[in-house]
Structure formats: C-alpha cells, structure tokens
C-alpha cells in the first residue's frame, strides 16, 4: 500500500485504507493537537474526528497532500475546541480589514491564500516558526518562549515584525482595505 493507493481505496469505502493512513499519520495529528491544546484529555476524541473527516471527505484529498490536509483539519478542530473553552484566545492579534470579496469570490480567496503564503514564507526562519506557532497553532507567547528558550519580549518583538510584514504584503496585493491605517 502507498498513499496514492490508500486514497483511492478510501474513496471506494475501504476501511483498511483508513486504518493504514491512521497508523501512518496518527503521530503527526497527535503532535498538532498537542501543540495547540497541550496535554488535553480530549485529544484522542479529536484525533478520531480528524480521521473521520478524512473518511468523509476522501474525494477532496489528493495523494501526496494527506499529511498537510490532516494537519490543517487537526489544527482547526483543536482551535475550535480551544475557542469553546476560551472565547478569546490569548493571541497577539491585530484586526485586519480585508478588502471585500468581489464576484469571483473563490478566486479572490485563492489569491489571498497565495499572498498569505508568500508573506509568511518571506519571513526570516525563526520569525516564521514563531509566527506559525502563535497564529497557526495558537500557542501563547509564554509557551513559545519556553519551548524556544527565548525571552517573552523577544518573542513578542518577532511576532510584531511578522505582522508588519504580513500586512505590507497583503496591502501590496490589494487584500487590505486602503482606508485602514496601521
């Protein structure tokens, strides 16, 4: 079995393929859930929900991109769980006013995602790691500082730098409302 065969079998409703993928990626899904939630007892339940989503949406998952897809689903489920407990996440947030989507909404969102990707990938490596830990995995400044052995103020400074870079790229791409001042 390889990933391509597994996804094909999954689309035909083959439970063995699901088990094969689960055994292959359970460790990664658990890592994402733990990164967001910490040692939370609900992780196993959420992990089974992640693989149930893979079963349900097998038609949308492309071979070779399963790990990324599972990671994104795990992150979003963990983030939702976190929000249920704490409606306001302890993140260094800036409210962005995004340009209203036009009639070609789907295309606009795709371009926006491409722009976001370009902005984050353009960050210096450590800044990018901190940025993703904070805004993608919802880790607090304190946790990042502990894990990376940094001063919290340094983490905050690097986050600020990342945010400015993101806004600049989004603005240049036409994805921020021009009336907004930062």
């Amino acid at each position, binding site marked *: 079995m390889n990933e*391509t*065969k597994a996804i*094909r*079998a999954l*689309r*035909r*409703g*083959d*439970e063995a393929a*699901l*088990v094969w993928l*689960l*055994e292959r990626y*359970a*460790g990664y899904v*658990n*890592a*994402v859930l*733990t*990164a967001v939630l910490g040692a939370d007892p609900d992780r*196993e*339940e959420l*992990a089974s929900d992640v*693989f*149930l989503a893979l*079963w*349900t*949406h097998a*038609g949308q998952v*492309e071979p070779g991109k399963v*790990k*990324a897809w599972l990671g*994104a689903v795990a992150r*979003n489920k963990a*983030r939702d769980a976190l929000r249920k407990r704490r409606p306001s996440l302890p*993140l260094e*947030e800036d*409210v*962005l*006013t*995004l*340009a*209203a*989507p036009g009639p070609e909404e*789907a*295309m606009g*969102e795709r371009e*926006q*995602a*491409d722009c*976001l*990707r370009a902005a*984050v990938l353009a960050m210096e490596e450590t800044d990018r*790691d901190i940025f993703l*830990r904070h*805004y*993608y995995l*919802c880790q607090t400044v304190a946790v990042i500082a502990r894990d990376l052995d940094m001063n919290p103020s340094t983490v905050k400074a690097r986050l600020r730098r990342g*945010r400015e870079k*993101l806004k600049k790229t989004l603005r240049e791409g036409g994805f921020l409302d021009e009336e907004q001042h930062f």
Partner: protein
Amino acid sequence: MKSNISDLMDRWPGPVPPLEDQPVADLDALRARTLEKVRAQGKRTKGRRVPRAVVLAAVLAACVVLAGAATGQLQAVLTRDWRHDTLVSSPEEAAADAARRAEETGENMAYGWINPNGDPPVPLEEMVEKARAKSASWDTGDCIGGTFGPLINQWTGPEVTDQTGAVWSRTIHGVEQGHSPLSALFPRKYTKYEYTARTPADLDTVLSGLVTPDTDWLTETFTAPDWANFYYRIYDSRQVLRGEVCHLLYTLPEGRYVQLSYGYAPGETFSSSYLMESHYDRAETYTSATGLEAVIRTKNGILWADTATPEFLLSLYGGYLTVEEAEAILDHISVELAPED
C-alpha cells in the same frame, strides 16, 4: 470585512509547521473509536439512494451517448434495460435467452438490440474538439451539466479549484428536483468533483483506482492530445460516492483514434441487452489478460468494445481501430470493483 490574523490562518496553505510526531498513547483505542464513528455514519446514511432512472441515465450518458449519439448508433430498438454484453445470431435466440432469464429471475424484462446504422467514424478532429469541450470552458461553466440524468437539471458553478498545473479541478453542484411534491420540497443535492489534465498520465493521479489504465503502455503506444480527457466523481450531501465517470482520448497515425470511457454507479444493478452478430462486419467476445470480459464488434471503420458488470460499464469507441488493437488495450486495463455486500 474584518478578520484577525489567526482567522486568516484558517486558510493557511502550508507548509505545515515542523512538528515531531508524537506517538498516540493508545493507538488501538484510536483505531477502534474512529471505525466506530465511521460505521455509525454509514448507518445514518443507509437508505439514501439515487433513483435507478438517474443512475441508469448516468451510466448510459457516460458510456453510450458521447460516442453513440455522434455516430447514430442508437437508431434501433431501445429497451428498458441496457447492457452491451450478449451476442446473439438471431432475434429468436434473443427471445429464447430472455425467456430463460425471466424463468431464472421470475421477472419479465423487455429486451432489444443495438443496430449500428453503418455511418463511418466521427472524424478525428471532431473527436478531439468534443473531448476538449470541458477543458475549453473550464472556468466559464459553458459545459457543466447534462451528464447525470434528466432529473438533475440545476447544475451550478463551476467553482474552479485549480487551473494552473497539469491537472485542473473544479466543483459543480447539482440539485435533483424529481417530480413528486415531496422531492420538490426536499430536493437532493449532489456535488461533482471534476478533473481534466494535460495528459491521461497526469489525470491518473486523481483517479479513484477503480479502473487502472496502464498509462505508461498507452503513452508509448498512442498519442494523447493535450487536455482531451475528463473525469468526475459525484457525492451526495452525506459525502457518499454515487458515481464516477471518465473519458480518455488517444490517437494513432492516419486519423485513427480510440476513446476509452467508463462509468460506475455503486449499489445499482443493470440488466443486459443483445447484439446481433449479423449487424456487424465482425463481432466476438474477448477475455483480456486482466480478466475483463468484453464484446468487440466493428462496422464500416467503427469499433465498439464494451465490458460490463451490474454497476459498471467500460467502453472503447475506435475510429479505424483494429480488433487486435482493442484487445491489446483491454489487456492493459485493470478494474478493481469493491466486493458486493
């Protein structure tokens, strides 16, 4: 539209953050819990079936109409059920076979046969143009509907999800209206995930694996015109697979070509029809090296080859393709159908 950065990251397209795998404490429990949820979901969706008429029309549309309508092959007797699999030498033999089947099943079925009209093959240029109709209007939606039966007449879209690489994808939504007051109140909704690719080998990366053409051999043996292929899967609103359809076009020197098409509708059953040997220049059955049992026949430059199971049809439509070439193609196609319940 106001958004904060963590919301924006919901659409983060990767790469994934570098995380070390963290072993699950009880993998057996996770496996068991997940399968429990999968089976519970299956029970909830049981009983929602696409009407037989819709699925029948889908498979017919996939495997017959594209080639048949173009060639005028469907001029003869239409029957209630079709399956291109029984060669007979006379109408009497068909009647006797139908009577035998009725005795076995306890059900009297109408029967008939396809009568080719003797027209020559569709010119290659026209076949290529037809095969590119989808890719030519990928982002305009000019050609998105009509392939899944008469009851679904509200296809909307397309939502193009990729039109940059060697494989393009888009999503189409469909509503089955039906004729009853209840179906009008609660129309069933379907989603069609469509793909077209530069070459069949590129398209192979998104196929479900139900049918596995040996694209390496096909590519070595034939030429595939760019973007002259098409594949889709249909799911209902519960994300249950309702069918898939694929068309691949290959060409040979001197205007010769072959179009390979297949359609699959899980959970449905199709009965058979008859082919009259005398209507063709040549007609025979063939079992491929991969175990496919097919009926191959030719008339005036056209070759048809069909292989069918109760829920699956695969066909070749060839322009000046030889029987031997058709057999070689069938030898390089594997079909993996899920076991019946």
